[in-house]
């Protein structure tokens, strides 16, 4: 999981464009970074955050009229200077940046080493410059050398290369995102649009197998047979404006506070409150599926658990699967099953692999995503957008809330039969204001003062609140680095209760006052008996607030909307806990925003 950029036609401004581009892609990975510029073939690279590379660039002042850059999140080899991209061949004639995994790199590396090539890094990427150099030595012109090399690669990759003596950037996409930015007299390449959105909003979204040859006079897109193809230039609407922190200390806090707006956008125009109907404009009539399988990873998997739970309540057999397990151990599928991939970025490699597997077995697929034109959106039969706006913080917040609303809209769209949706619509319309009231009055920060030095944090809930408990724990561990676990409340006594002590606060998500709530109250007493302090996240309908040691209140709402609200309280707790502990909240160690490797 990395980010790549490239730019040609910008003359002396090239280095600045590359560095700015890398900065806006930093969310994709940040344990090392580097750039290469031509015609000098100068390469600068550095482990650590981008500032480390900036210092080297400022000291060396490289010049060039075209170049490529890379920000890395390690998959092969530790984050060191020598593993940082760009990688070069032995003579320095070729520089390459790469995002993805080259699956046959061991074979290629062995083959190259047999011919006497010495490798200087632990990366899979390094085979690429050596292969290009060998093709050049064999008499290939630079473009043929690039094509002949790419033809030999297996796996998923987005690659960009520059080759000495040719004022050209060569790039290829297979399984990892790569977009072309079309400027006036210049061409940009990047893993994601924000890298060049300051310069142009005209974008070509490449498809797998395609290659780009960019020169100062323009670009050509070729297919795998090296034949030119015409690709539509699309204008993207969002701007770099939405990627600033607007005065908040962290993107995560900004995005938590953006949730009322994000939820409003997600819901806008999709429900008719007068006749109680919900319509998703972007999907044609989808026949009611016999069963639904959700595939997703991380936070999106928790949204999938929620989505599956509400579909089951509506009488549709539905399950959530971890995407990384799904493709390798696929569950049985019958025709008439719909497979729904939930992925914020639409580029999550595990989720894409699961969706492709489902598609290959002949069932229809649907992407529930935040990113228009993403790979998931293009490859699935249907795409539903959650419209949360760009999310930069590695820890997903507003996109999770919008995914939950998206699950509701999708479920109502999928399931036939007359029913009165007005109460649901009313509660979803109220969500932005209900979230705002939590943001205005949450006690989460006070609770952090009391519980900041606990041994561990546990989160429990039942029904759709299981998803909230798991997500609360994930948020807590990923940004605070504290030990946190979420459980279905009834599972506590089957093992985890052994971990519960007076030093392990338990967050109990209790909404409504049904049997699930009543049984969760029993679980609260169970952990209190072991001396653990209990923080109830509750709407006050049950006795949870009276029994618990502390409460985080949410407004009363429908059963479907309550998990969104409960989750906001837990987001705030995790944020303030991480802040109190001085963690790098927007860039937690070892994590990347969208994981485009399997």
């Amino acid at each position, binding site marked *: 999981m990395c980010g790549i950029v490239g730019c040609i036609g910008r003359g002396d401004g090239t280095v600045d464009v590359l560095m700015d581009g890398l900065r806006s892609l930093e969310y994709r990975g940040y344990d090392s970074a580097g750039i290469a510029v031509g015609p000098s073939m100068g390469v600068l690279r550095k482990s650590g955050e981008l500032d480390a590379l900036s210092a080297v660039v400022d000291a060396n002042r490289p010049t060039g009229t075209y170049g490529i850059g890379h920000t890395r999140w390690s998959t092969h080899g530790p984050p060191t200077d020598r593993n940082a991209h760009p990688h070069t061949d032995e003579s320095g004639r070729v520089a390459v940046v790469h995002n993805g995994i080259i699956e046959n790199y061991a074979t290629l590396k062995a083959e190259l080493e047999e011919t006497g090539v010495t490798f200087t890094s632990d990366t899979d990427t390094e085979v690429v410059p050596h292969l290009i150099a060998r093709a050049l030595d064999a008499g290939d012109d630079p473009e043929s050398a690039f094509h002949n090399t790419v033809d030999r690669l297996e796996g998923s990759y987005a690659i960009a290369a520059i080759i000495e003596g040719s004022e050209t950037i060569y790039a290829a996409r297979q399984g990892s995102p790569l977009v072309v930015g079309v400027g006036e007299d210049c061409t940009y390449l990047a893993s994601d649009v924000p890298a060049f959105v300051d310069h142009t909003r005209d974008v070509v979204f490449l498809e797998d197998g395609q290659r780009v040859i960019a020169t100062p006079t323009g670009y050509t897109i070729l297919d795998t047979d090296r034949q030119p193809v015409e690709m539509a230039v699309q204008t993207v609407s969002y701007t770099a*404006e939405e990627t600033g922190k*607007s*005065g908040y200390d962290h993107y995560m806090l900004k995005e938590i*506070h953006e949730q009322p707006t994000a939820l*409003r956008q997600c819901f806008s*125009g999709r429900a*008719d*409150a*007068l006749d109680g109907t919900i319509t998703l404009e972007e999907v044609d009539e989808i026949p009611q599926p016999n069963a639904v399988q959700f595939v997703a990873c991380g936070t999106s998997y928790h949204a999938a658990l929620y989505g599956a739970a509400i579909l089951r309540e509506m009488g549709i057999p539905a399950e959530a699967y971890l995407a990384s397990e799904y493709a390798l151990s696929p569950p049985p599928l019958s025709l008439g099953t719909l497979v729904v991939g939930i992925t914020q970025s639409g580029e999550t490699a595990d989720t894409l692999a699961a969706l492709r597997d489902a598609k290959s077995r002949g069932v229809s697929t649907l992407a529930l995503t935040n990113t228009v034109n993403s790979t998931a959106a293009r490859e699935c039969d249907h795409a539903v957008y959650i419209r949360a706006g760009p999310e930069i913080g590695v820890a997903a917040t507003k996109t999770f809330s919008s995914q939950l609303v998206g699950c509701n809209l999708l479920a109502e769209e999928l399931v036939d039969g007359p029913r009165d949706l007005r109460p649901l619509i009313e509660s979803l319309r109220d969500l932005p204001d209900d979230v705002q009231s939590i943001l205005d009055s949450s006690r989460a920060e006070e609770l952090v003062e009391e519980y900041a030095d606990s041994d561990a944090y546990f989160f429990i809930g039942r029904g759709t609140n299981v998803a909230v408990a798991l997500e609360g724990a994930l948020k807590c561990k990923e940004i605070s680095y504290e030990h946190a676990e979420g459980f279905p409340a009834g599972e506590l006594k089957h093992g985890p209760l052994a971990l519960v002590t007076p030093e392990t606060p338990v967050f109990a998500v209790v909404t409504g006052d049904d049997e699930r709530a009543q049984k969760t109250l029993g679980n609260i007493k169970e952990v209190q008996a072991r001396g653990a302090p209990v923080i109830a996240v509750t709407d006050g309908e049950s006795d949870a607030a009276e029994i618990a040691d502390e409460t985080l209140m949410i407004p009363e709402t429908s059963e479907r909307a309550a998990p969104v609200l409960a989750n906001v309280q837990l987001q705030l707790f995790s944020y303030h806990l991480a802040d109190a502990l001085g963690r790098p909240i927007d860039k937690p160690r070892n994590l990347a925003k969208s994981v485009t490797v399997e």
Partner: protein
Amino acid sequence: MLPAGTRPILEHVLNALIDAGVDDIHLVVGYQANRVRSHFGSTYREVPITYHTQTNQLGSGHALLQAQDGPDESFLLVNGDQIIDHRIVEAVSNAHTDTATLAVVEGPEAVDYGAVSLDGDEITELVEQPASGEFRLFNAGVYAFTQRIFETLETLSVERGELPLSDAIQQLIDDEVHTVGGVRTDHFWMDATHAWDLLSLSRELLSRGWVDAPAIDTDIYVEDTANVHPDATLVGPVVVDSDAVIEAGAVVGPYAAIGASATVGAGSALRDVVVDTDTTIGPNTTAVEVVAGQGCEIGAGLTAGGGPADVALDERVYSDVDLGGVVADRVEIGGGATLEPGALIGPGATVGDGVVVRGRIDAGSEVVR
């Protein structure tokens, strides 16, 4: 972030600045800072916004000092709670030559504002809320300054919890070296001191068509995503923002601004109202001259018949205010309640079924009968 029409006042302010050609905006935020940040983000209409936080609210001069690291050279300064025609901003910007320039307007309101004396293009005197009625000219609250204003502010100290900007301007007026310019203007400006001013502000905006939603008929502005029942009646001027719902038989307008995701119940009659985002008004409500904040839940059959009323606020009585009532953010009102003219209900208060509200109800309180 109070609404004028269906948009926060601050949004109108930024529109005026950008329409006047401003390309760099600094916002000093304190109260509801996060709401402001989340609403505008880091740019508005492609103009970058830098936020400066004022932790303690110690007056307008103190607020300006928070932005000392902001603009490098001359800059414009406006208030966040005042709607102004962009031509006032242009006039001040064009006239600005030395130290400080401010917009001057004429009217009987001078006694409530910073009254000024003007000699040609130069301000010779600035008197805050003058006791006598001799002044007709006053400061419209639109300024241009050089960096000098920061130096001047730094020489002053906070007294009685306030560091007013007018003290610094007064010092510049008294200074021999510097002059303070004044530009006469008669373009539209209006501020909202009290919640009921939002009604006249919205009236003005609606009359001028200063609303975002597309016009579907003369003086009738409805967003595409709004949901108006075919049996409901909109009487212009009226604006209905995105995802708002107007149920069957409701009559809305004239002079009604219905915010995003707000609901007007079946058979309700609303005239001269500002209903902010996410507020639900139950069926068969009669509301005249009512301001309702965000996220209120108003039960069926409310009656608020409109002013005039004498309103007591902050140890002062305002006579003959045309006001049916002010319902602040997140108030809940039960069915069949009545607002006597001039009723003020504080944020988060709960009012029970059938209650007759007279005078003022404090924030967060619960009234059962």
